[in-house]
């Protein structure tokens, strides 16, 4: 990489001493990006954007929030009612968490569909799963801070899960609580960690991006770049495409913030926490519902907790469960179908997680749980052996330049999204 020539003398002066402009030129301009990325590739930058939005609004909220069991609920209401534009900042933060998860879940399913976790991007994928875990911890603790009924009882239920660990479980739980129940020390430490973890996420995101830029983006065909004609510079092509996607995303996000700010929340969290009154249904935030359904599907507390964590842990070893050399589902006729079954399965789990554990819901929940693990632990390894993938195109340029060449059999909704 030859150092680029800058016209502006001040830029030259700075860059000679601190090569930030060379770095940006290298990572944005020279960085070769496949020319065929579709709109599903927008969600990575959207996730980065949401992380920044949450950190900025969170810092402002922290200036006005009081982490004490007697004042937390009222301080959040004070932010909504009396702090200038506090309602806006609070609703952005509250709905921002939900939309961060929407974006990240789509980002993850995109990676699963196009085999983005395969060699040489295994560490990139694993760092992504680490980010998701950190997000979950952060979101969980953030939900406790307003100290409403669901905050309190959600915290009680989830922290109590650790008591399932043999021998040391009870000790771990009182260590987490800082006492013998969810109380002021719990609120204080959750607040502290809720402020800390987002910056840890930023650190892992940096590693995620470094790993990404080492081998570049995967692409909808899942094949390597075969030369200059297959790639375009990230800037301006993908910056402008990301900005357009951002505009679309922000429009939808703002519809929720301004016109349905409580739609994704639970009414019970507008009741101040009361340790003596248990709500009839304790449900977590919607983005935890699939995992909550897995937890409840197993009639043993310890095994339920193990299964819930295993549901995430299985993602860590995904690159080694799916041994098929073909990345993109476009060329894997059976995998493409089981992918959509997995999506449906996760939606079913989410639905079951929101329902009371009774009647048919239990059976459906158990079936969906079994299928979730079967997808990763049975179906994927078997498909790696028995599936006959379709022939891959020689290069990204081929189907585009060839005009009449074999069109990628990528139908369905993924193909419909494609414009690039």
């Amino acid at each position: 990489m030859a150092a680029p020539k800058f016209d502006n003398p001040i830029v030259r002066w700075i860059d000679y001493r601190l090569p930030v402009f060379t770095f940006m030129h290298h990572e944005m301009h020279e960085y070769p990006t496949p020319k065929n990325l579709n709109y599903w590739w927008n969600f990575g930058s959207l996730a980065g954007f949401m992380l920044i939005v949450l950190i900025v609004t969170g810092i402002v909220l922290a200036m006005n929030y009081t982490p004490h069991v007697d004042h937390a609920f009222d301080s959040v209401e004070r932010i909504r009612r009396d702090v200038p534009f506090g309602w806006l900042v609070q609703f952005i933060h509250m709905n921002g968490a939900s939309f961060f998860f929407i974006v990240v879940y789509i980002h993850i399913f995109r990676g699963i569909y196009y085999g983005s976790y395969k060699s040489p991007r295994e560490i990139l994928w694993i760092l992504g799963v680490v980010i998701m875990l950190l997000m979950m911890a952060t979101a969980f603790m953030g939900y406790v801070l307003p100290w409403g009924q669901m905050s309190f009882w959600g915290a009680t239920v989830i922290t109590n899960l650790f008591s399932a660990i043999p021998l040391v479980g009870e000790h771990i739980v009182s260590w987490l609580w800082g006492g013998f129940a969810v109380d002021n020390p719990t609120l204080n430490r959750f607040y502290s960690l809720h402020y800390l973890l987002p910056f840890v996420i930023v650190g892992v995101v940096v590693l995620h991006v470094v790993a990404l830029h080492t081998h570049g983006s995967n692409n909808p065909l899942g094949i390597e770049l075969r030369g200059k004609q297959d790639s375009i510079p990230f800037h301006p092509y993908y910056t402008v495409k990301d900005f357009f996607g951002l505009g679309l995303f922000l429009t939808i996000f703002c519809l929720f913030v301004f016109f349905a700010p409580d739609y994704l929340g639970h009414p019970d969290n507008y009741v101040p926490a009361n340790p003596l009154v248990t709500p009839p249904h304790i449900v977590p935030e919607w983005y935890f519902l699939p995992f909550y359904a897995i937890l409840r599907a197993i009639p043993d507390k310890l095994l339920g907790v193990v299964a819930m964590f295993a549901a995430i842990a299985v993602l860590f070893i995904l690159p080694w469960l799916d041994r098929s050399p073909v990345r993109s589902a476009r060329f894997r006729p059976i995998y493409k179908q089981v992918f959509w079954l997995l999506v449906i399965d996760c939606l079913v789990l989410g639905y079951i997680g929101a329902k009371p554990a009774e009647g048919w819901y239990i059976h459906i929940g158990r079936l969906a749980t079994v299928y979730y693990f079967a997808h990763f632990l049975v179906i994927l390894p078997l498909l790696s052996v028995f599936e006959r993938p379709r022939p891959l195109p020689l290069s990204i340029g081929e189907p585009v330049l060839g005009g009449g060449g074999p069109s990628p059999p990528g139908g369905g909704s993924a193909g419909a999204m494609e414009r690039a």
Partner: protein
Amino acid sequence: MRNRLIGAALAAVRGLAVLPGAASAAGDGPQPPEREWSFNGIFGTFDRAALQRGYQVYREVCAACHSMRLLYYRNLMQIGLSEAAAKVEAANAFIVDGPDSEGEMFERPGKLSDRFVSPFPNDNAAKAANGGALPPDLSLMAKNQAGGPDYIAAVLTGYADPPEGMEMSDTQSYNMYYSGHRIAMPPPLSDDLVEYADGTPATVDQMAVDVSHFLMFAAEPQLEDRHRLGVKVIIFLLVLTGILYALKRKVWSAVH
């Protein structure tokens, strides 16, 4: 008490382990009927006349038992009262303030910067005066009940005779929309219970709708700001996104 807390928490966790019939759905009443509210929709605003009538119902009926601790008397200017009228409302309340320079607590008339005075000094006093049941604070009632203002209006108008065979104790009333149907609040409204200043006939339904309207305001006084700003933001974003799409097409035209 700590032990009881842990016990309750453990019971909640055990509830997670799936046992058929362990949990039962709480919403066993009929769905509250959906009503037309002026604050619904993206251009929705509060109806000032309804808010003032609703405040009158709150002050003359509900406030006998229910607190509204998150509202200030200054909020009354947002429902259309003049500053002078809001000051009069505040001054009608007696605020315990202090200690003064002698170390004594004293009573003074309320100011705009005071919160609504609660009918009882604390929860235990409220329970003692209400047969053991605690009248909930109404500040966020329109947000913390599924159905919001529809639900409040439905409960206020949902009193009926209990069905055959349902035993009610002296302190309970039957309500079609209340979860479990046994509500500790006796029917609070009856026709012409208040006399509206604007001459609106004070039927039970009218009062229920008005006070629900006011409770929505109490739960989110900044709702109108939210809608107003939201419309502008969405228009801006639509235009911006359109421009960005045109820009994207232009930049990419060389690649396609």
